[in-house]
């Protein structure tokens, strides 16, 4: 890898100014960035290591809900009682992510800002719409792990397992730069290629994720999360479905969010409407299965994801409504 310098700012303001000066990348744990540097996909002269910044690490709670500091390790999120009790779908997805070692290192802030895992994007030899060129190699190339929804401009999938679950819980992403703080709903934090193919998330230069709020009013004990992948350890989802029923105890307020099938976590209001229509029975699950692939535009190698979603949504909905596997 190419040698680089390491800046260790101790405040958000310092970090922000450093990035505004020369666009050096921020690093939390580095489990994504360092790999890209080793692969010559990202070749920075300097990285801005955020680990010395106070106040953005750890889990706290107040009237609004539970706050995850951006530097909180994935393992600490997964084993947190506050998360296990209040937001069990998040604990469940993180508990199974990556490997024990990575979960001990990687941070929740870095997890939602990691670069998509498209093998063309992460190869020094390819230029595409996402890294400054044009077009999408995956659309006519090798695309079995790519998007089946919203894949016209760029077919990456959002790689974070936690992201769709955060969207389902209505999480709020707190970001801060030299101009102050912003709060962005998780559903708007992830940027579609149509909005801006160069961006994965809604951060401007000098801005970093500081905390993530899981709102108290969106807790629910009726949750389901199902995911398929090729191997149990060190792998990303091929597809995932998060289902929350009666969020915050409000009857009929459901959330269905699909993961790993589009460039951003995909909330499906049409499926939520079906769920709101009445009791979760066999007929309703059949209609969900029929509908879940609607609007999909699979590429040459990833049509299987439609069938996969049909299985996963049945599983997640049954789990959320307390039914046995059927």
């Amino acid at each position, binding site marked *: 890898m190419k*040698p680089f310098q*390491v800046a260790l700012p101790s405040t958000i303001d310092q970090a922000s100014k450093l990035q505004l000066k020369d666009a050096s990348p921020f690093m939390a744990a580095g489990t994504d960035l360092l*790999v890209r540097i080793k692969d010559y996909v990202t070749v920075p002269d300097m990285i801005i*290591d955020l680990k010395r910044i106070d106040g953005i690490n750890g889990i706290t709670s107040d009237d609004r809900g539970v706050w995850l500091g951006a530097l909180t390790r994935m393992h600490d999120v997964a084993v947190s009682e506050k998360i296990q009790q209040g937001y069990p779908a998040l604990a469940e997805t993180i508990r199974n992510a990556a490997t024990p070692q990575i979960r*001990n290192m990687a941070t929740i802030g870095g997890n939602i800002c990691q670069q998509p895992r498209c093998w063309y994007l992460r190869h020094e030899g390819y230029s595409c719409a996402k890294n400054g060129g044009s077009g999408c190699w995956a659309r006519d190339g090798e695309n079995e792990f790519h998007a089946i929804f919203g894949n016209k401009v760029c077919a990456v999938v959002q790689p974070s397992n936690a992201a769709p679950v955060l969207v389902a819980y209505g999480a709020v992403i707190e970001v801060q730069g030299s101009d102050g703080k912003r709060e962005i709903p998780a559903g708007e934090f992830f940027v579609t290629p149509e909005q801006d193919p160069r961006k994965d998330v809604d951060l401007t230069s000098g801005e970093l994720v500081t905390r993530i709020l899981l709102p108290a009013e969106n807790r629910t004990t009726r949750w389901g999360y199902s995911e398929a992948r090729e191997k149990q350890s060190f792998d990303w989802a091929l597809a995932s479905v998060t289902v929350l029923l009666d969020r915050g105890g409000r009857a009929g307020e459901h959330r269905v969010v699909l993961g790993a099938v589009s460039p951003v976590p995909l909330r499906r209001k049409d499926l939520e409407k079906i769920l709101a229509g009445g009791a979760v029975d066999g007929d309703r699950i059949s209609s969900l299965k029929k509908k879940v692939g609607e609007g999909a535009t699979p590429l040459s190698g990833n049509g299987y994801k439609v069938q996969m979603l049909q299985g996963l949504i049945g599983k997640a909905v049954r789990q959320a409504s307390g039914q046995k596997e059927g």
Partner: protein
Amino acid sequence: MSQEQTTRTLQVNGEVHHVAFPVHHSLLEVLREELGLTGTKHGCELGECGTCTVLIDGKPLLSCLELAAECEDRKIETVEGMMRGNELHPLQACFADLGAAQCGYCTPGILMAAQSLLEENDTPSRDEIVSALAGNLCRCTGYHKILEAVEWAAAQLRGDESYRLPESAFYGDPVPGEKVSDA
């Protein structure tokens, strides 16, 4: 661009080292190149294989993705620090006795991950061992003997004299150690 050197105080296996190294070097590189501790292995370098696993403040982490410059004031443990005086750590002895290491390249990382597990949980179930070692790839053993070795070492560490390994856990002749004759 020139390689900017930095100096840090690293505490490795209970010893304090003042060490100078290029600031972009990983803990793995500094352990092996500056400190001569070559027990920790280079594997994929991308966080996928686990063979570079070391313990930092008791937790298994990947030394290939940890910058050494970040490791000051943290307690680093490597496979070289496992022995107790001249005695092998029970995990090391059980791995050797059961043939849980074949080519041996993944072994240091697996020993570290297993040590961390046994420090937290002295009676791990088979599933708990599998989960704890889920970040370590082994391409030789098929894992079975590794799991048996960790179970046996756990029994030794908690002083459980009633624990019996299945005869099938051993291969070849002679059978290693007195413990087998009881079995």
